[in-house]
């Protein structure tokens, strides 16, 4: 399977005009293969979220081209057609859910994205299955509202939605940064499960190269809007060619390695 999901050529996105113009994504060229987990790694403000939003058709490119399945994104008039295939998980699960409706009803309402809704019974069953897939007993969230669950549980609810919709591509934008260190591992496990069981292509956006190393088949390092290095995780982490990558690796606190030299 060497089919390409995304292809970008000289893709740029700028904001503002004249003196105040900011280039968030600066002429990037890359391709993402089918059934691959690709990590976009970089510091805050390096343009990784803007790039992810362009793949989601939430931002339009300023110049260059971005193709999905061989066709330019944005060629269709109805963005919903794109969202049936490409879905997202964001950083803050609490802002992604409406506080005034139960979680279950919101999970069920995600079926409205499809052209034809399945029968009520089938929808209920698929919600149950999705909840079980993220290790939550359907009874635990019965009648509950988003604010009644912990951050880790809510993040799993967002992933349950992905298990319901089964898109071809999942864009996960910092899904672990609001989550406790000890539930982080389980979120990563679900991403790998989505890839293995539903053969999904996953774009994982993170600032932690350690997490990227753990899940991905390929890592893109971004800095100031450009992709400065890309390659398989072992190559990127063991023999980094770019200073940005070295810096990112160096900044992770690791128990076996000195981190900050201190005089006192």
């Amino acid at each position: 399977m060497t089919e390409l999901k995304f292809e970008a050529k000289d893709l740029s996105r700028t904001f503002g005009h004249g003196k105040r113009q900011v280039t968030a994504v600066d002429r990037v060229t890359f391709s993402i293969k089918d059934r691959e987990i690709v990590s976009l790694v970089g510091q805050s403000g390096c343009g990784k979220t803007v790039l992810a939003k362009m793949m989601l058709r939430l931002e339009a490119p300023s110049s260059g081209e971005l193709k999905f399945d061989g066709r330019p994104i944005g060629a269709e008039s109805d963005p919903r057609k794109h969202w049936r295939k490409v879905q997202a998980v964001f950083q803050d699960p609490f802002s992604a859910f409406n506080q005034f409706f139960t979680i279950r009803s919101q999970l069920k309402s995600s079926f409205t994205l499809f052209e034809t809704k399945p029968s009520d019974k089938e929808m209920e069953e698929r919600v149950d299955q999705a909840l079980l897939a993220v290790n939550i007993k359907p009874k635990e969230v019965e009648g509950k509202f988003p604010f009644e669950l912990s951050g880790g549980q809510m993040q799993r609810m967002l992933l349950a939605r992905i298990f319901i919709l089964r898109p071809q591509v999942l864009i996960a934008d910092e899904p672990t940064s609001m989550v406790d260190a000890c539930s982080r591992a389980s979120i990563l496990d679900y991403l790998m499960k989505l890839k293995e069981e539903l053969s999904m292509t996953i774009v994982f956006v993170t600032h932690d190269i350690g997490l990227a190393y753990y899940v991905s088949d390929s890592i893109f390092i971004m800095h100031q809007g450009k992709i400065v290095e890309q390659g398989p995780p072992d190559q990127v982490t063991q023999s980094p060619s770019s200073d940005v990558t070295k810096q990112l690796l160096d900044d992770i606190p690791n128990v076996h390695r000195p981190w900050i030299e201190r005089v006192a």
Partner: protein
Amino acid sequence: MADPILEVDDLRLHYLTRFGEKIHAVDGVTFELQKGEILGIAGESGCGKTTLVSGLLGLYIPPLHHTSGDVRIDGKSIIGMNVEQNREQVLGRQVAMIPQGALNSLNPTRKVKDLATDMILSHEQGLDKKVVYERLRERFGRVGLDAEHVLNSYPVALPAGTKQRVVIGISTLLNPKVVIADEPTSALDVSTQKAVVRLLFELMDQEIISSMLFITHELPLLRHVSSRIAVMYAGEFVELGTTEQVIFDGHQPYTRALMGSMLSAEPGQKTKRPVAIEGAPPNLKNPISGCRFAERCPVARLDCPSTKQVLRIVAGREVRCKYAESTAQTLGDMGASAP
């Protein structure tokens, strides 16, 4: 060694819900912070870390109430004051906090100098504004900022890293005896995190900060920050020892589980999968008689849920586990991960 600046004595705090139920969020915490020491407190969300911070600041704003126990700074108790007295005598001077969301904790409608002046004037009334401004300029310079420019800017105009320095600068304006950093880096990317920790070290070297409590859920970070670590679970300390003892040789199964759930980008570590801790911490509404971690503990024995666990000294550190001596052995036999 025995020169404590902060003494916490069997502190118990509870929240009173609107249904009249008590939630015992901090349940019998005892420790000492020595002068010049950094003590790390680690634990997952909801274990009572932030409640403990409110308790140490003496800020009992309902629904949080003080149940029993004492907090002494430099030998003087800070319990039993009202909010006004506390603000005047304790906050900022005795103990100051560096908040979690440093980026959103500055009032966007006021200039940095006004925010900082307020801080000084609320403690030392009647000072001339010019004198205060000079002091601010000197201090902000020492925090590594372009003082003149920063003081006359609005917070929104400053980049994230600078804002972080401003917040830390304002928190430490009055040279507090104890600084509490409550997850100061959890919203930041790894590179900014390193810069913040470096700044805190600089301030300690300059003796602007003398003793610090560093609260986080990232154990690997504490490896480089603190000299001792306390691991907190469900309102109690479950292990308290030196950094080496806790990180490399935890005797409480929870400490081990917390370490096992962390991952690092060490080459060749891909095979060693981090293991999440399944389940959720217990509900603290009702008093719990046995071990609080028993339900999630991989090596729990039959009598764990019913036996009262006390902190005792095992292998040179305090541990709250009846079977602490054999933890390493049992977990090792099960093939569970050691760091």
